[in-house]
């Protein structure tokens, strides 16, 4: 059981993050995820022991800047190939459920 004082993320928070991530959970799964995420997030508290004031964050493993190439048209996948793995398609388009209700 997660101690009240150690709660990092509530069940309500978990439900909201699931909404952001386009995931859906049953009540039981929400319960389990809340507990597991609390354990993991509590472990991350370790990082707060370190003073990182003024330390530049690393977003890449090695120093690199933009990779440019000349703006020349290159071959890309054919339309038929691109649609081959689509769950649904129609007339060279991906087909999705109706977006605008009404």
């Amino acid at each position, binding site marked *: 059981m997660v101690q009240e004082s150690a709660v990092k993320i509530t069940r309500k928070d978990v439900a909201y993050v699931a909404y952001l991530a386009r995931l859906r959970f049953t009540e039981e799964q929400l319960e389990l995820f809340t507990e597991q995420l609390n354990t993991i997030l509590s472990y991350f508290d370790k990082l707060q022991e370190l003073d*990182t004031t003024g*330390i530049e964050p*690393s977003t890449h493993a090695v120093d690199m800047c933009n990779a440019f190439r000349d703006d020349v048209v290159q071959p890309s996948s054919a339309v038929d190939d691109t649609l081959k793995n689509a769950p649904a398609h129609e007339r060279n388009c991906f087909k999705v459920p109706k977006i605008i209700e009404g």
Partner: protein
Amino acid sequence: MARKLYQMTIHELHELLKNRHISSRELVVSMFERIDAVEQRVHAYITLTKQEALQQAETADQKISEGSAGPLTGIPIAIKDIFCTAGIATTCGSKILENFVPVYDATVIKKLKQQHAVLIGKTNMDEFAMGSSTETSYFGPTRNPWSLDRVPGGSSGGSAAAVAADECIAALGTDTGGSIRQPAACCGVVGMKPTYGRVSRFGMVAFASSLDQAGPFAKDVTDTALMMNCICGYDPLDSTSVNRDVPDYSRALVREVADLTLGVPKEYFSGPGMDLEVEKAVWHALRELERQGATIKEVSLPHTAYAVAAYYLIAPAEASSNLARYDGVKYGYRTPQETGLREMYELTRSEGFGAEVKRRIMLGTYALSAGYYDAYYKKASQVRTLIRRDFEQAFQICDLIVTPTAPTPPFKLGEKINDPLQMYLSDIFTIPANLAGLPGLSIPCGMSADGLPIGMQIIGNYFAEETMLRCAYCFEQQSEWHRKKPVLA
């Protein structure tokens, strides 16, 4: 008893093929006989491609008869199911990609095909490479050939087990936090993660793009060098690929370590969870290298204890973004339920992803969400800088860093699957090299009393793969561990 073809190494088989003592076809047939005999127990593969392999063997035999055989021509290679293979299902161990058939080859696959290597199948893996045991695969776990109730490590557990069980001659894997080195250690084979940017990521299903790197599994160091020669190199299709000449790694394999100083980080040999047999085996190997003339020096990597926490914020953050593409529209699984668009996304992703993938998407989404970004993602990225600096300082006084690959021998199936944090901590020694972008290699260096393999990790400076391979080669020449085989028959 004469050794079977499937038991041999790339360099041994290349001699036999080149001198026309055997054909690639014979070799592939031998390989599939072995697979038929043991695969049911090991479950190293998701897809086997026997027909395609026999066709490729025929072409390889033709190339050999024309006198144009490369080191990998006609050699059966297994591919982690994370690399796109044109016309062959690429599942990434997930239900969401169960029926995905790529229309192009990953760059590394192209490179293997250019040498006329024979691709025999796609190996099992943790779903989207998220795991350290291959248990999160939608297609069921792979078993460790040394002990079938143990995990082969992960996430490239299928590739490691296939090499160990002689179900392929060598294999490809990927390593985001140890996914080549840790399974190599668990299965008693050699595994190498090159410097970030050394190998193209084009056509590799993305998990955490700033950490992912492809690399080989092989039966010995010489084969590892031959695989590296084939897969390394600049690729304009991967913007993080590094434009730098690729040396002939096999030329680095000379018996000379007297010029090397090996750094032993004290932080990797202490602390709870460290198995005494592992510690002893790695020290034994270090003493052997010292006997050959290497200098051993204690070094410090003071931020090691923070690496797992930093990694499990950075990798899930990148994953939550990378995996947003699985929306049931362009490829992959879509829920069969009739719904509106938003519901379709939610049901598709909830039905298509397994628990560990969802857990990491949730962690990453949370760490990047408004109000938590600074406390989690930014903090972890700053700690990543501190970890890089640790290595920069250590490499001022040593040439290579030597550590255990994993804190324990392979654990039991089911032992950690319900305790995510314990599972994450099994990557404690491999994660720092990914965060820093450094190359790492695991080589067999011992056995536990229970007969389970133990691996030694060699970490090099950026693009120091030649020095790492040379050190590993020198150890291997005085060791029998790489010749030991699990009993499966």
